[in-house]
């Protein structure tokens, strides 16, 4: 069965079937996300940036409705900006998380978005706060979110350790996102990370064809035609 234009659901709202992750390490945090934004089964954007800057030292990973999560993070960025001017010093991660909660909880009937707030401040160091659907705030050493996270709980139970180095933590995040991309049809594309510590924030990018391949995953191809031409190994041709 092939997809016709009718059953592709192209008018559905843009949703980030997503894998997002926040991990604390010795001295800071690493945030990670895939880059797929879908409209039904159509990939509306294959290189979206789901890790959004709130302040110099606080970022947020967005999941769920793309529109809702953008509006929430835009408001929070605005309030944090005001707050930073008022106090004359950078806002803390806790304050950012509480503002996200205030909006998520207060408008829970209208919002479909789960966020992970992460950052560094001079008082508490690196902190991760998960703010899932209803508007709870959960401070945690690591948080995972989005549709892809269901494939990662067991992995994190096994692989997460306290007191990792920055390099270990980032490797863990990239590995976890690539694992989720392999299993979760709603996650895909590239892996983006943001590392935040006392020195500031640094963005990294891992292209889709550089990610490790997991169980029965296929090599990246430039064209589907190459697979079909080769025959045998490729996916079974779609039945009409």
């Amino acid at each position, binding site marked *: 069965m092939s997809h016709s234009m009718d059953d592709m659901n192209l008018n559905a709202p843009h949703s980030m079937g997503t894998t997002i992750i926040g991990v604390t390490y010795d001295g800071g945090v690493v945030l990670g996300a895939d880059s797929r934004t879908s409209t039904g089964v159509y990939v509306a954007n294959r290189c979206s940036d789901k890790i959004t800057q709130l302040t110099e030292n606080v970022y947020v990973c967005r999941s769920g409705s793309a529109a809702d999560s953008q509006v929430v993070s835009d408001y929070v960025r605005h309030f944090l900006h005001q*707050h930073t001017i*008022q*106090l004359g010093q950078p806002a*803390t991660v*806790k*304050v950012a*998380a*509480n*503002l996200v*909660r*205030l909006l998520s909880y207060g408008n829970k009937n209208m919002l479909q978005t789960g966020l992970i707030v992460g950052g560094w401040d001079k*008082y508490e160091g690196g902190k991760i706060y998960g703010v899932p659907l209803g508007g709870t*705030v959960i401070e945690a050493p690591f948080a995972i979110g989005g549709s892809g996270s269901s494939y990662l709980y067991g992995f994190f139970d096994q692989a997460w350790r306290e007191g990792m180095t920055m390099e270990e933590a980032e490797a863990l995040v990239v590995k976890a996102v690539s694992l989720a991309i392999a299993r979760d049809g709603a996650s895909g594309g590239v892996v983006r990370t943001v590392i935040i510590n006392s020195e500031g924030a640094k963005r990294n990018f891992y292209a889709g064809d550089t990610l490790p391949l997991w169980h029965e995953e296929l090599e990246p191809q430039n064209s589907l035609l190459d697979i079909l031409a080769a025959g045998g190994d490729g996916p079974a041709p779609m039945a009409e």
Partner: protein
Amino acid sequence: MSSIGTGRIVMGVEKLIASKMMLPGSNRRIHSVHRHSGMAVAGLAADGRQIVARTKSEATNYENVYGDQIPIKELAERVASYVHLCTLYWWLRPFGCGIILGGYDRDGPQLYMVEPSGVSYRYFGAAIGKGRQAAKTEIEKLKLSELTCRQGVIEVAKIIYGIHDEAKDKDFELEMSWVCDESNRQHQKVPDELLEEAKAAARAALEEMDAD
């Protein structure tokens, strides 16, 4: 009047007794604002309560929005704005009192004084009210950075007793509070046992002065 040393805050008030029929401890002039700060009032006590109520609501409101304790500096600015606002309209009367706001936040202990005009400044030691000049002179003589909190309580008691003129002034009740490590960085009444010790020390110091 109040004073502060590094790592600790002591506030003390000389509360004149309006009537001997009144129960001790009534008409409090030192109020808690939230867990880690409090304010002392000099002047019209009722006006002071109005300011305290506003300060409390500013503190809780900030905590609801930002999920964190309000910095003392921010609290002082907001109270000062409120006090100043009341000087701006013909249908409002300015407050008939000054307040000293002391508290502990992440940046350590801080002491602010807000005057009825709405100005506020941060101090190492501050005094307001009728005896402020004499009290300030005494505070300036203290080595604030070397005092422990307990010593601070005794020094403040001595100053308040020293300024009081037994012959001329009405009787008074000494009201004291502190915010220090011993009070778990919380704003609390000075324990009775220590207050009594401070009063005794203050009386002893007075007698010593009289003897000279």
